[in-house]
C-alpha cells in the first residue's frame, strides 16, 4: 500500500517521533523526521539529492596517493618537448596530438611525460559486484584488485583508481562541487527511488524497489541539505529511466538486488548524458528524513568517457588531470564485461556516494514502470 493512501496516519507518526521526543525541552532545537507507518505497510519515497564518486580520502592524500596528485594537462604539455611550436602551429595549448588533436577527443594520440599517480590504498567504498573476494576474472569481469570497505567487505570500485588522485574529484574539488550543485539544481538529474511493500522500515526481508526519473525541483534548506517530504512527480516521458528490482531492509539498511541494465540521465559537469550501468545495486541507510549510501554498478566505459571528457575538465585549476592519462587509466582499470574478442573490459566498476531526501512520489495516471531494459522479477514471491 502506498503512503499516499494513508497520508495523515503516516504524518502522524512522523510528528510523534519528531517533535515530542522525550528529550524535547525549551529552546532545544529538534530535528525533523519523516517515517512510514509500520502497521499498515507502505512506501518510502526518496529523491536523490547528491551523487559523488565514492572516494577514500585521508588528509593530504598521504595514504592513498603517496606519489602525489595528478598534474594538469597544461603542465603535461609544458613538459612535452615542442610546446611552443605546437602552440604556434595549432593555436591552443591543448592541441597536443601530432596533428593538433585534443586529448579529450583523441587521447591515444597524446603522450604525457609526467606519469599517472596511482591510487595506492586498499581502503575504499563500494559494493561487491563480481561476487568474488579476490577480484579474479570471471565470465563477466576482468582481474582486478578489491578494496576493503570500512565494514570489512571486499568491494569493487575501479573508478576510484581512475579519479582518486585527482584534486578536482576529491573533497571540495572544483569538479565534484560543480557536479554536486548541478545534480541538485537540474531536474535532468532528478532520480527517484521508491521502496514499496515495506512492512517494517527497520527490517523487511522483501521489498520492491523502483527507480524513476523525476520532474520537479528540490527545496534547498542550506548547507547542501534539502527539505524532506516534497512532492516529486514521475517524468512519464521516460519509461527508459524506470527500473525495478527487489531488495531487503536489515537494521535500517536497504540492499537491492542488481538491476541487470539501467540507464540513468545525468547532467555531469555541464554535459548531459545517458549513463549506462550493468548490475546496478543500491545500498542505502534509511533515515527519518532520507537516506545515504552507495549506488554502484558496472558503468559502460565508452559512454562514461564520452560524458566525462567533454567540456571543462582537464584544465589547470579545474580538473588538474590529463585526458590522455585518464582515458588510459580507465581502460587499464576497467573490470567488467570483457569484449569477447579482445578481452578488454568494456565497463568499469563505479561506486557513487549518494544522499537522498524523503519525497512524496506522485504517479502519473499512465505510469508504467519499464520492462525495457531489465528482466524484472515481479513474480518473485
Amino acid at each position, binding site marked *: 500500500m502506498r*503512503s*499516499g*493512501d*494513508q*497520508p*495523515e*496516519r*503516516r*504524518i*502522524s*507518526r512522523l*510528528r*510523534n517521533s519528531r*517533535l*515530542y*521526543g*522525550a528529550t*524535547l525541552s525549551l529552546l532545544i*532545537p*529538534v530535528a*525533523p523526521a519523516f517515517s512510514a507507518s509500520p502497521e499498515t505497510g507502505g512506501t518510502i*519515497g526518496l529523491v536523490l539529492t547528491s551523487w559523488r564518486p565514492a572516494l577514500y580520502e585521508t588528509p593530504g592524500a598521504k595514504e592513498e596517493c603517496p606519489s602525489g596528485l595528478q598534474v594538469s594537462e597544461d603542465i603535461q604539455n609544458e613538459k612535452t618537448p615542442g610546446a611552443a611550436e605546437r602552440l604556434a602551429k595549432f593555436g591552443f595549448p591543448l592541441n597536443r596530438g601530432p596533428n593538433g588533436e585534443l586529448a579529450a577527443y583523441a587521447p591515444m594520440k597524446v603522450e604525457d611525460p609526467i606519469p599517472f599517480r596511482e591510487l595506492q590504498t586498499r581502503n575504499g567504498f563500494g559494493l561487491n559486484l563480481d561476487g568474488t573476494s579476490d577480484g579474479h576474472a570471471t565470465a563477466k569481469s576482468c582481474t582486478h584488485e578489491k578494496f576493503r570497505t570500512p565494514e570489512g567487505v571486499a568491494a569493487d570500485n575501479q573508478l576510484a583508481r581512475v579519479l582518486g588522485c585527482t584534486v578536482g574529484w576529491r573533497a571540495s574539488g572544483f569538479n565534484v562541487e560543480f557536479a554536486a550543485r548541478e545534480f541538485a539544481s537540474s531536474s535532468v538529474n532528478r532520480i527517484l527511488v521508491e521502496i514499496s511493500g515495506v512492512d517494517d522500515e527497520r527490517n523487511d526481508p522483501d521489498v520492491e524497489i523502483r527507480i524513476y526519473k523525476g*520532474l*520537479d*525541483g528540490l*527545496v534547498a*534548506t542550506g548547507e547542501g541539505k534539502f*527539505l*524532506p*517530504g*516534497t*512532492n*516529486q*512527480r514521475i517524468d512519464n516521458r521516460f519509461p527508459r529511466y524506470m527500473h525495478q528490482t527487489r531488495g531487503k531492509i536489515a537494521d535500517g539498511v536497504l540492499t537491492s538486488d542488481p538491476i541487470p541494465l539501467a540507464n540513468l540521465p545525468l547532467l555531469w559537469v555541464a554535459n548531459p548524458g545517458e549513463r549506462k550501468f550493468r548490475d546496478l545495486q543500491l545500498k542505502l541507510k534509511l533515515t527519518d528524513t532520507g537516506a545515504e549510501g552507495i549506488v554502484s554498478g558496472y558503468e559502460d566505459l565508452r559512454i562514461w568517457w564520452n560524458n566525462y571528457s567533454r567540456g571543462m575538465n582537464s584544465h589547470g585549476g579545474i580538473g588538474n588531470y590529463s585526458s590522455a592519462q585518464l582515458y588510459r587509466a580507465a581502460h587499464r582499470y576497467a573490470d567488467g564485461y570483457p569484449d569477447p574478442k579482445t578481452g578488454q573490459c568494456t565497463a568499469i566498476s563505479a561506486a557513487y556516494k549518494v544522499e537522498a531526501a524523503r519525497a*512524496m*512520489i*506522485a*504517479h*502519473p*495516471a499512465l505510469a508504467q514502470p519499464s520492462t525495457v531494459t531489465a528482466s524484472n522479477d515481479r513474480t518473485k514471491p
Partner: protein
Amino acid sequence: MSAPVKNWTKPVRAALIAFSCLATVGATGPSSTSGGADPSLRLISVSQYRNILQSVFGADVLPKVRFAPVKRTDGLLAVGSSAAVVTPGVLDPLDSAARAVAERVVDPLHRDTLIPCKPASASSADEACAQRFLSRVGLMLYRRPMTQQELTEKVMLAGKAAARSKDFYSGLATALSSMLVSPNFLFIRENAEVDPARPGQWRLDGYSKASRLSFFLWDSAPDAELLTAASRGDLHTPEGLKRQVERMTASPLLTRGARAFFTDFLALEAYDNVAKDPVIYPAFTQKVAQDAREQILRTIEDHLITRGEDYRDLFTTRRIMLSAPLAGIYGTPLLAGPSEWKPFDLPADSPRAGLLTQIGFLAQYAHPGRSSPTRRGKGIREVLLCQHVPDPPPNVDFSIVEDPNAHFSTARQRLVAHNTDPTCRGCHMMTDPIGLGLEKFDGAGQFRATEKGAAIDTSGNLDGAAFTDAIGLGRALRDNPTLKSCISNRLYAFGVGRPLTEQESEVVEQFPAVLDKSGYRFKDMLRLVIFSPSFFAIKPQKGPAMALLTEQNHAH
C-alpha cells in the same frame, strides 16, 4: 419578472418579492425617512486599485504598490475604508505608482495600443487626441463621465505639459498621473440625488449604484456596459438592475469579487506575515505559507462559485484545492507542477475536512513554534461567528502553568490547569473548548496523533454541540446558527462598504429565514443583499449642493 429570475432558488425569489413589497411600503410609509444611510466616501483598496488599472491598461503597466493598512472596523477593512484618510504616508506610494503607471502607458511599447489616436506631432500638444484619450480613461477611473470642466482642465494640463516638455506623450502622462492621485479616483464617492419617482425621497445616482455593484461583485470599477446602464437610468428600475446583477454574477469576474470578500472577511492579509520556526517546522517554507493562504481562496472559489455549494458546507467538505508545495504538508503526493492547483478529495479516513483543517487557518491561529487552541478558538469566534472575545485581564496568574514540576504534555493539560483560575476561565471557556478540537494539528497545520508522547483529546463543545474531533467541530460550526447571521452581516457590510444602519441590521436578520430554505449559496446571498430594500436606500439629504448633482454637466 425577467427571464434570469427563473434561475434563482425558489425561497430567494419569494423573499425578493416580499422584499420588494417591503420596499414599497417603506417608501410610502411613515417610517421611510428613518431608513437609509448617508452616501459614503470610501478609500479604494489595493486590490480595487490594481483591478481597475489592469482592466483599463493591462497587467503589464501595474506597478508594485503597497497601501497603508486600513483600520478593520466591524470585522472588515471594507468598512474601515469608509473612515480611512489619506495621510502623506498613504499618498506617497500612490503618487510614485501613479507616475510609474502614466509613464508606462505612454511609453513606446504601450502607446499604440493604449492611446486611441496619434497626435499630429509627437513633439507638441494635440488637444483632440488628448481629449479622446483622457475622456475615455476618465470614464473608467472616475466611474462616471468626467464633467466638462474636469475634462477641459485635464486636456489643458496635458497641453501645457506637452508644450513645456515638447512631448505630446509626456503631456498626456502628466494629466494621467494627476488623475491617478485624484480624489475622484482614489475615493469611491457616492452621490445622492432627489428621487423623481418619489417626491421627498432621495436615492443614489445611477453611477453610484453602478460602482457599488461592481466593487461588491467584481472588486473593481464598473465596465462599459454597466456605466451605460447607469447613464440610461436602468439601475433605478427593478428590471434594469436585475439584468445587470444577473450579468455580473454570471461573469467570471465574480470570482474576483468573492476573493476580495473572503480575503477581507477571513482577514487573510494577516496570513502574509505568517512564518514558522524553521527548526520546529522545517516543512513550512515561505512557499507553503503563500500557498496555504491561496488554498483557502481557491477552495472557496471552487466550492462557492465553480460548484455553487452551500457556504456552510465549506466547513465540512472533503474537497480541497491542493498545490505541490502543500502536498508535502498534507502528506500526499500530487500530480501537479510547482505552481499548479488541483482539486483533491481528502480520503474518507482523513482527519481533515473543511476550512478549519486547512493549514492556512491552522497556522495563522497558532504560534511560530506551537499550536494554540485559544487563538484558534478566538479566530473561529471572532472571524467566522462575528463574536467578540474579551482581552485577558492584565494581571493573569500563570503560576500553575509555570510550575516546572507540572510537566504538561498537551495543550489541554496546560489550559485545564490555567483555567482553574476563575478570572481566566470565563474567556477561555469561549475559545478553548473549540480550539482544542483542532489540537491534532500542530502549529504549522501538520497532523499529529500525540503531543510529547501523550494522547491528544480533541473532544469539545461549540455552543452546546459536542464533538470528538476536528471533523466534528467542522460539523458543529456548520450547523451553528451564528455562522449564518455572521456571513449575512459581513457580506452586506462589505457590499455597502460602511457600518450597517439599524434598518439594515433588521433586514439582514431576515436573511437566514430565507437562506435556511434555499441553502447558503453565494449567488443567492449576493442577490438577497443587493435586492434588499435597504441596499441602495439613502437618507434624505440637506443642502442644495447635493441636489445640484443631478444637473451636473457630464462631458461626453
